[in-house]
């Protein structure tokens, strides 16, 4: 149907916490990402086809080695407080995330930015330490929204941005209330009059609220009730495959994981179909031991799907002389919902290959700081990244801070650097395909499956194609969706 203005859109979201702040650098949950893009814009928007399109930046280009990037800013865009957005604000924003003292979550992404400077009021130049063909994708990250220069301390809470909605009220961990920005610069976007974003942590509470019509939209439908919800009149359930995936990293500089035979055996000992059915209830796709998702641009479609093969697993294990080894698999549901179940299933599956796995339950709390990257084999979750480069550099490049397997592969690393600066798509594709294969056959991580983002909404809402880069229509449903009449 035709987009239409009006209405109060109420969302129930997970992840809200009383300790939340509105500083884009410390945002961590669905609720806050959504609010962030209600009230602010980025330089670049990622559309539903995974393409960077202009947002506050009108256009951009780069030097041939992809080391220097010039962004032309849109003119005449006003912040909610009436101030006009200029290069100064962009530089302030980027530096807020990049500075020495920054506590921003995206600090590592911007590590390659060596310098950033204005060229006049409406142009910004980024100088990178190495070539990066996907640099615009980075600027499309959901943390990198442009804020007025000089924002500090409690001013963040006011949520001043250039976005389609103006933050009227915000109570951390409870709700946010925003009204439409009458001066919004974008055409054909932001259709609602008012938006209420509620933090509803409990899944059943969210489901009930949707059923009673107290909210119009909820994220993270409980997979076990998703099929029941589908049958409810007046409710639409959407399942989108994105880049998010589960992984089971093995630290490869520790025995016995240093032996690729062992890694191979473990990869073969996992019954992905069963995991998909049991843990995700079919809301997902099979993984192939690399982090690139089917929606990614250069996904290796033709790479052979890894299958459950206990005999072969046993063969590799024998080869490694490790048949008697007891593997400790560390797990907590903090990794992802059902991680412990998944670990137990894996233990049973591996038993058929003659492998002994001992599932070690870890506390949820502190899982990311005490278990992940510390314990030799554990359950893990990645939201994924819109580009191959971002994903690989983040967690697979040797020496990357989040390289949770300590995996080092020379060929892989060289390819990564080359592909980054390669502007020819055909060549890039070849490189990325090879990297996926290397990762699959040598890498330290088992990627058993991609999980879909399952969300539910009232059928009063209408929308275009749903983006899979992030949940909640790329966290932009408030801007892209509208009420049917």
């Amino acid at each position, binding site marked *: 149907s035709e987009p239409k203005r009006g209405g109060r859109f109420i969302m129930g979201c997970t992840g809200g916490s009383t300790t939340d702040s509105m500083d884009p650098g410390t945002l961590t949950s669905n609720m806050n990402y959504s609010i962030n893009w209600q009230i602010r814009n980025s330089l670049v928007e990622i559309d539903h086809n995974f393409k960077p399109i202009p947002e506050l930046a009108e256009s951009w280009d780069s030097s041939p080695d992809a080391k220097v990037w010039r962004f032309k800013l849109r003119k005449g865009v006003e912040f909610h407080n009436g101030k006009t957005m200029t290069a100064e604000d962009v530089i302030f924003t980027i530096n807020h995330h990049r500075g020495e003292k920054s506590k921003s979550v995206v600090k*590592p992404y911007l590590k390659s930015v060596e310098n950033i400077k204005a060229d006049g009021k409406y142009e910004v130049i980024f100088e990178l330490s190495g070539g990066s063909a996907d640099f615009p994708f980075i600027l499309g990250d959901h943390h990198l929204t442009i804020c007025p220069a000089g924002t500090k301390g409690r001013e963040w809470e006011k949520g001043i941005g250039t976005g389609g909605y103006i933050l009227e009220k915000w109570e951390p961990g409870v*709700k946010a209330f925003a009204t439409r920005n009458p001066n919004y610069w974008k055409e054909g976007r932001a259709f609602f009059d008012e938006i209420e974003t509620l933090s509803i942590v409990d899944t059943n509470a969210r489901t009930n609220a949707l059923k009673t019509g107290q909210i119009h939209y909820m994220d993270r439908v409980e997979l076990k009730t998703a099929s029941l919800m589908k049958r409810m009149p007046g409710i639409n359930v959407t399942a989108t495959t994105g880049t998010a995936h589960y992984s089971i990293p093995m630290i490869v500089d520790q025995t016995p994981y240093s032996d690729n035979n062992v890694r191979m055996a473990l990869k073969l000992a996992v019954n992905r179909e069963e995991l998909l059915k049991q843990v995700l209830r079919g809301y997902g796709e099979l993984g192939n031991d690399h982090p690139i998702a089917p929606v990614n641009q250069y996904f290796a479609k033709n790479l052979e799907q890894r299958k459950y093969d206990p005999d072969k697993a046993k063969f590799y294990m024998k080869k490694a002389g490790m048949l008697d080894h007891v593997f400790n698999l560390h797990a907590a549901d903090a990794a992802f919902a059902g991680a412990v179940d998944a670990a137990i299933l894996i233990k049973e599956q591996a038993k058929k290959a003659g492998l002994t796995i001992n599932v070690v339950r870890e506390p949820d709390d502190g899982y990311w700081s005490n278990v992940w990257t510390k314990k030799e084999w554990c359950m893990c979750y990645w939201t994924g990244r819109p580009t191959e480069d971002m994903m690989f550099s983040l967690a697979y490049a040797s020496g990357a801070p989040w390289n949770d397997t300590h995996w080092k592969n020379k060929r892989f690393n060289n390819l990564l650097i080359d592909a980054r600066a390669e502007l020819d798509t055909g060549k890039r594709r070849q490189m990325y395909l090879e990297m996926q294969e290397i990762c699959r056959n040598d890498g330290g991580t088992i990627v058993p499956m991609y999980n879909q983002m399952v969300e539910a909404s009232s059928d009063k809402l209408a929308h275009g194609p749903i983006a899979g880069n992030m949940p909640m229509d790329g966290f932009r449903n408030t801007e892209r969706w509208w009420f049917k009449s």
Partner: protein
Amino acid sequence: MKNVLILISKRLGASLATIFIISVIIFIGVEMLPGDVAETVLGQSATPETVTAFRTQLKLDLPPHIRYGAWLKDFIHGDFGKSLANGRPVSELIGWRFANTLFLALTTAVIAVPLAIFLGMLAAFYRNTFFDKLISITTLSFISFPEFFIAYILISILSVKLNIFPSLAMIDQDMGFTSKIYAILLPSLTLTCVVTAHMMRQTRAAIINVLASAYIEMARIKGIKRLRIIVHHAFPNSLSPVINVIAVNLAYLIVGVVIVEVVFVYPGLGQLLVDSVAKRDLPVVQASGLIFSIAYIFLNLAADILSMLSNPKLRQSSI
């Protein structure tokens, strides 16, 4: 009366000491938790660099006793400090949430306490009859259901099926009193189911306990009606245990309703405390933990004083 005053002041002193010790314990406890606010706020995205930056900014690199000292000093001056996670003043974070918690507790108490006492008296009056057994079994069942379950049942009937009440108890400051009450009726009802049973059983037990006394037999021998015996002779003498159980339940209504807050998405203090423990947001944990302890201690003190006042032997000791 003098006795009561001495006792109150003694208990107050002890309470203050308890509160102080609790604050130390909370501090040490949170300090001992693995990880800190920097790591937990940053989650999976915590790299050593960002964590260090975060820490320095929050002065987490100072030794614990110095931080505790600073906190205590500020606390005594009425400054609860700022949340480490989002920099908001703790008093602001806690203020309206505590008010919400009290609001829910009071609304529930207003329904539950008279109901429980009434039912308790009735059950004592009709003790060992079918009616008594009926109330007994009903209330027992209510005690026996986990509270989240009561909540879900109430929601699925009253809210999803019949659509009488909202399933979310989201309230905010600008709401009118009646709409606030309407919004929290369902959580109140849930809590009423949970606490009434306990109080009612204790009331019944206390009254029945007293019914064995000689003065109750005397009242019967004087030809007093049974109902009057219960209300006029037995109940005043069973006040002390009843007051105590009411205090325990009120304390529960204030400090123990995390689950109801979660299910109904009610912005109360319990949720805040749980969140801040998870995030290691020490000043918030400290302050809300203390408020809970103070509420508990205060209610117990109040119960002691009230049950003393209800007992003429203690009340009149100055004459």
